[in-house]
């Protein structure tokens, strides 16, 4: 890593930490939403790594959220409920996916869709989950005698979860299992021919994804202090795909985060115009279709294809990017 990249990363981390001190509380709230959606988008990208577009994010998000809401009502600590929610999502996921996953991508895809809608119905109509009104007045999470009740504290908690997710995903992508996933995503037949058990690797992927989606659900309920079925609907899980499309397909860690930033902050600022809110989803849909048609690899893919070659032809770029790099590298043509 060059010195300039280290500096940029440091500045970014400092900015993220100082964010609640610099802006008004409302923007902090938008930031918390962005963090949650980034976690969901990361999980979606995570399953795209094995060639499975999953539409059941709303369901597992709800499993985490409802576990936290129900158990915190009985007085359990938040951190324990988040863990239990994740474990429940993994076990339930294993039971359900062991039917659908061996049947290939298409069957898995449809199964997930129906699963998400069925879970939504279940959250709404089973009395244990509080009906369509949901579970309200969930207590605030605590650590020792400290209570996470203000927006900045919750923001830091979310940042911690996001960082945890990022670190785990990064380590997994760069491990042996991650290389097997990359092989599966590039060609299923090739992966099979070199002896990769596709179903087993895919199962590992979706179950790890389940755990972190449920974690995001627990965090969201701790922030929102309520679990309502409409939050965890199928549409809420499906909208997560937008982030990956905007950010870029081939960037599994940075793409969803960039996409979530753009897709959460821009609507928030545009929504101040009058009469806009009805047309918001139409505007988003039109933009997404245009991106799919003319920018099929997303913004980061466009940077890779167009901006980077332009930069590589500039001398000053090489001077900056090689600042602080010890060994002499050959400049690629």
């Amino acid at each position, binding site marked *: 890593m060059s010195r300039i990249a280290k500096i940029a990363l440091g500045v970014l981390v400092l900015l993220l930490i100082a964010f609640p001190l610099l802006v008004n509380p409302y923007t902090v709230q938008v930031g918390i939403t962005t963090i949650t959606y980034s976690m969901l988008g990361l999980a979606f990208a995570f399953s795209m790594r094995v060639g499975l577009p999953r539409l059941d994010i709303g369901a597992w998000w709800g499993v985490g959220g409802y576990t936290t809401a129900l158990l915190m009502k009985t007085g359990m600590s938040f951190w324990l409920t988040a863990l239990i929610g994740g474990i429940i999502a993994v076990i339930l996921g294993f039971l359900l996916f062991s039917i659908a996953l061996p049947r290939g991508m*298409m069957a898995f895809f449809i*199964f997930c869709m*129906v699963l998400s809608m069925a879970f939504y*119905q*279940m959250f709404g109509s089973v009395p244990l989950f509080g009906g369509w009104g949901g579970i309200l007045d969930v207590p605030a999470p605590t650590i020792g005698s400290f209570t996470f009740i203000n927006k900045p504290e919750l923001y830091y908690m979310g940042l911690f979860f996001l960082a945890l997710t990022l670190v785990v995903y990064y380590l997994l992508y760069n491990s042996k299992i991650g290389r097997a996933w990359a092989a599966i995503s590039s060609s299923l037949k090739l992966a099979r021919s070199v002896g990769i058990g596709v179903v087993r690797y895919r199962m590992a992927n979706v179950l790890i994804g389940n755990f972190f989606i449920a974690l995001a659900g627990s965090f969201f309920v701790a922030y929102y202090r309520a679990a309502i079925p409409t939050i965890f609907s199928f549409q809420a899980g499906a909208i997560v795909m937008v982030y990956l499309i905007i950010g870029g397909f081939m960037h599994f860690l940075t793409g969803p985060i960039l996409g979530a930033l753009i897709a959460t902050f821009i609507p928030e600022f545009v929504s101040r115009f009058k009469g806009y809110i009805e047309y918001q989803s*139409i505007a988003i*849909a039109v933009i*997404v*279709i245009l991106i799919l*048609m003319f920018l099929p690899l997303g913004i980061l893919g466009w940077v890779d294809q167009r901006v980077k070659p332009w930069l590589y032809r500039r001398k000053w770029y090489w001077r900056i990017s090689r600042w602080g790099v010890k060994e002499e590298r050959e400049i690629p043509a």
Partner: protein
Amino acid sequence: MSVGLFFQLLANGLMSGGMYALVASGLTLTLGVLKIFNFAQGQFFMLGAFVTFAVAEALGLPYPVAILAALISMAILGVVMYFGIIQQVMTNFFSSMMATIFFAMIISQGSLLTFASQERAIPPVFPGTLNLGEVSLNWGKLLVIGCAIVVMVALYYFMRTKIGTAMLAAAESSDVASLQGINAKQIFWVTMAVGCGLSGIAGAIIAPAMGAYLMMGTNVFMRALLVLMVGGMGSMSGALIAGFLVGIVESFAFQFVGYLNLIVILVLVGALMFFRPGGLLGKPLPVPGE
């Protein structure tokens, strides 16, 4: 359970099952030929019902004209969708899927803002009921079932014509079909027209029995997906049989467990997938992207 209730539920199941079968066969046709998953199919269904309302109620034309209008307008909309969007994104299965999802979103939100904000009722074509001892059935429901069967037979004969055979050939392999002198580009938009037209006509058929409302598209589309899974993807006859099967199971499950019937269907479909992965009739499908 009394005999009357049994036949009521059976008629309800056959009615909605016919709709599922029509939408699912359109879906499986597009999936087979274009190798894309058209998520806007449900919205076409909803638009078909509204077109029927507009033609039959607002313009006052007879009901068969309304059915024809729904079929033709949805077919044209499907062709427009093909040339406007799908042609550009067809190469990548995932992007084509996303594009149709968001096109469906544009349609549903756009119609919510313009004409679909309230439920529209269309008066029944044949009022009254059929009474056979204990059993009493609504003529409207029987008409829906009859129309659905007529459309299915028409579809069967359409697939036997030259263009239908060309479609099936393109579904096998579009490259080899081109080698035989079939214009694959032309087959693509014709397939979109047929698939979307099927959804439109299904909406037109159901409109007098259930009215026209915004959520009907999403509801039918989700069941059509289940039908696809039960019947086996890429199998037209499987989709038709499975459509009626899912409709009947849903109708009876609704009687006993209420709105949790979706979970009953999910469990049944899961069990079916476990024991018969290729669906009831289908062979294991050639899945795009795998």
